[in-house]
């Protein structure tokens, strides 16, 4: 059973991996290996503060566990799941064992194992007995994170069938993503920790987590405390066993009913208010109804704002309140990043748009307006609330400009990305009982995140100029600039999306029908695919994404954010390199970081341009009859009646 399932998993992966996917995976794996090596290195370090190393390792292991739990929400369900086998007469326990073994055969598991070897390093610094103990400890820890990931996926899948469950899932996910995104405090703020260590309450909480128990056991073994060694290891084994049992119980056919959402009565089916007139109005109404009724959309509505609010709450622990006014902007940014697969989510329903002639533009616009209707008032209200809570008027123009630019930029970009970087998944009616079974939108979300941040930067640049030159009028001019940039993005990118939809509609439909882009062989006489992402080689994609990562890291966390802090006159150094160097060097370091960031974005753009089809090539909508093989005169044999 185990061998069969492992082979099956490898076969599924072999058949579903495209070049682009491989590049994205490669990038993810490299990042993962870097993190694993960093974890390993951590275990070699010496700290003056006695308990700091253990605390740091505990936090790091907890973050790895968190990553395993949050991953499937973006990446979709694992390649093999219990649903695939529930008609086979295989005992659930056997199936669970097989699936667990298959889950362990993965690059991600290997990377995690590498990271967890930090525990062996840690043990080697204590005693050889501790090393012996650390081996089963590492195995148990690995089983813990893999099982946690699987159980959480199944629980989320059950929950997200209802709208209320969608709210819960989204909030938990937002908290996990937010927590994980704060892990860089650890990396950069080590200097602060070296001095003070973690607050005692914090270390108590972290050590209580099951992900820390193997660490505690190894440490106890180092001290020769045998009760302290066996206790946590046994407890961890019990948790692992319990998770395994829970997982095998959950693997069977679903027993929880999906709450059914009802539509409107016959009298109210056709709303004819002034808002819903014409083509765009009709589609707008359809979109609003979908936003209201689809649990997957409920999840999307909650995700962005929940992420923003939780992200604003964390820095309050350090007494840092300057993020509060930006809670609306962050919400809009996240909402754009998580809603960019509009057409992919609707699946093959695109055929109706293609058979009702000439409605592509109305379709795109209505989707943009529906997104703005859902998130516009919500994020503006969050911005207002954040500004009021913060109480300092100086950040209001910044916050307002960022929110408006994120909304406008987001609405334009999500329309464009939804057709140029569409991620196919199962049709909604086929996945209605397993909403977690979707395409892997991680890459798309990252792309949106970068692009929307880019769209915000002109307005923030104006605000910065106003601040630096001490011109309040210029500072406030960032708001109309943001509005202008937003409207431009919304209009221009929306039109571009509509054009792509009109020219490439059948190709997009094919992509959703077959789950993969039309192969180069069948694209005779026209540009292959709809976007350079599809034509780009794996190497180029890896290059582009790495450049993008450099751009984001340089420009935002190490460039613009310390710049903002410095401008706001706050003495907080927090975790930014520029603020830790001597005063005269702070501005140059910020400038260099911004330059590195911009260079990153620029090279990403250059790679993209190089791979994009040249604009001078003939229009792709040329007659299909111009294809390579000329139609043969008569191919179908005429009727041979009766014979």
């Amino acid at each position: 059973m185990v061998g069969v399932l492992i082979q099956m998993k490898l076969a599924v992966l072999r058949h579903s991996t495209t070049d682009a996917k491989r590049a994205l995976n490669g990038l993810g794996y490299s990042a993962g290996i870097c993190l694993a090596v960093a974890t390993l290195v951590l275990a070699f370090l010496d700290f003056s503060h006695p308990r700091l190393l253990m605390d740091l390792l505990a936090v790091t292991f907890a973050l790895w566990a968190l990553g395993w739990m949050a991953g499937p929400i973006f990446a979709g369900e694992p390649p093999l799941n219990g649903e695939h086998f529930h008609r086979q007469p295989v005992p659930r326990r056997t199936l669970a064992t097989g699936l667990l073994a298959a889950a362990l055969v993965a690059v991600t598991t290997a990377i995690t194992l590498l990271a967890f070897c930090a525990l062996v390093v840690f043990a080697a610094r204590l005693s050889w007995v501790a090393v012996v103990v650390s081996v089963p400890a590492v195995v148990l820890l690995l089983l813990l994170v893999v099982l946690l990931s699987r159980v959480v996926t199944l629980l989320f899948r059950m929950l997200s069938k209802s709208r209320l469950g969608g709210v819960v899932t989204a909030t938990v996910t937002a908290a996990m993503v937010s927590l994980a995104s704060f892990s860089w405090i650890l990396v950069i703020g080590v200097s602060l920790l070296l001095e003070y260590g973690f607050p005692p309450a914090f270390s108590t909480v972290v050590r209580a987590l099951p992900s820390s128990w193997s660490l505690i056991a190894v440490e106890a073994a180092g001290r020769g405390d045998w009760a302290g060694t066996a206790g946590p290891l046994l407890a961890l084994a019990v948790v692992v066993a319990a998770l395994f049992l829970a997982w095998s119980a959950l693997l069977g056919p679903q027993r929880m009913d999906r709450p059914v959402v009802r539509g409107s009565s016959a009298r109210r089916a056709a709303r004819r208010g002034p808002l819903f007139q014409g083509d765009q109005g009709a589609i707008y109404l359809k979109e609003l109804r979908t936003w209201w009724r689809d649990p997957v959309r409920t999840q999307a509505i909650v995700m962005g704002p929940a992420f923003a609010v939780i992200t604003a709450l964390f820095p309050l622990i350090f007494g840092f309140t300057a993020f509060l006014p930006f809670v609306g902007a962050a919400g809009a940014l996240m909402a754009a990043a998580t809603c960019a697969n509009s057409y992919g989510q609707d699946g093959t329903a695109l055929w109706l748009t293609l058979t009702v002639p000439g409605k592509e533009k109305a379709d795109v616009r209505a989707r943009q307006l529906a997104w703005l209707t859902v998130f516009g008032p919500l994020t503006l209200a969050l911005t207002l609330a954040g500004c009021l809570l913060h109480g300092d008027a100086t950040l209001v123009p910044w916050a307002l400009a960022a929110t408006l630019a994120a909304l406008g930029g987001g609405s334009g970009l999500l329309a464009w990305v939804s057709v140029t970087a569409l991620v196919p998944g199962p049709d909604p009616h086929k996945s209605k009982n397993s909403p977690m079974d979707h395409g892997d939108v991680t890459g798309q979300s990252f792309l949106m995140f970068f692009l929307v941040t880019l769209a915000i930067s002109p307005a923030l640049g104006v605000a910065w100029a106003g601040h630096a030159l001490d011109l309040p009028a210029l500072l406030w001019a960032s708001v109309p600039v943001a509005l202008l940039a937003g409207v431009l993005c919304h209009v221009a990118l929306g039109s571009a999306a509509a054009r792509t939809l009109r020219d490439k509609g059948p190709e997009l439909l094919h992509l959703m029908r077959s789950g993969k882009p039309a192969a180069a062989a069948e694209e005779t006489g026209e540009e292959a695919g709809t976007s350079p992402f599809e034509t780009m080689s794996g190497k180029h994609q890896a290059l582009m994404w790495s450049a993008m990562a450099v751009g984001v890291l340089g420009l935002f966390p190490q460039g613009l954010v310390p710049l903002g802090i410095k401008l706001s006159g706050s003495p907080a150094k927090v975790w930014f390199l520029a603020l830790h160097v001597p005063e005269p060097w702070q501005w140059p370091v910020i400038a260099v970081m911004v330059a590195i960031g911009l260079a990153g974005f620029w090279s990403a753009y250059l790679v993209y341009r190089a791979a994009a089809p040249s604009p001078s090539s003939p229009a792709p909508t040329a007659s299909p009859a111009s294809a390579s093989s000329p139609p043969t005169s008569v191919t179908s044999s005429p009727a041979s009646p009766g014979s």
Partner: protein
Amino acid sequence: MRSPTTAPALRLDGLAKTFGEKIAVDHVELTVPRGSFYGLVGPNGAGKTTALSMAVGLLRPDAGRALVDGVDVWQEPLRARRLMGVLPDGLAMPERLTGRELLTYLGQLHGLSAGEADRRADELLAVMELDGSAERTLVVDYSTGMRKKIGLATALLHAPRLLVLDEPLEAVDPVSAATIKTILKRFVGHGGSVLLSSHVMALVEELCDTVAVMARGRVVAEGPLGAVRGDRSLEETFVGLVGVTVGGGEGLSWLAS
């Protein structure tokens, strides 16, 4: 271009499509005469769905043309698509709408007046038995048969002159199937044309006056039903044309023991 009054309802002219190595449709020629009830039959994987998708503008062909009333589907999509009603097999819909919401939505997109859209939606839902207790059910919660019926309703809504239906009666219960057959016969009786694909020979024999047999991406026979089947049943003719022997008689000894 031929004058629309004499052009056939639908003509496929050398349509071809290759997926990677596999030739799915190999230069298919088909003519659906006006006012005919045309059946396209073929075994699984013969290329029926691919051919129909290219005929209605949902899949771009590698070569060839599709003409509806003489209008090229790929050159003048706006005009051609107004003349057709399409029912693809197994595709998604705007899933979070009720049947009535879906029909009024499409009616609005097709430019029907509010009153007209409401009237047609009313009649279609009543005929398809999708009103009453199913009134507030969302399409996502429809059964397979209900999905077929709402799909057919969307194809009929804008009063097209040609219907292209991929497996229209699959998974539909016998009562609803009888209703749909009556609707389609009336449609043809009033001058409309229907092209449907199926692998149920009895259905095609019952409804269609013209048939084509597809195998391995080619049309191997086309003509009036009587001419194609001769004095045999359509099924026997089909098996002969497709060139396979009926399996199942031998092997599988473990199943019989």
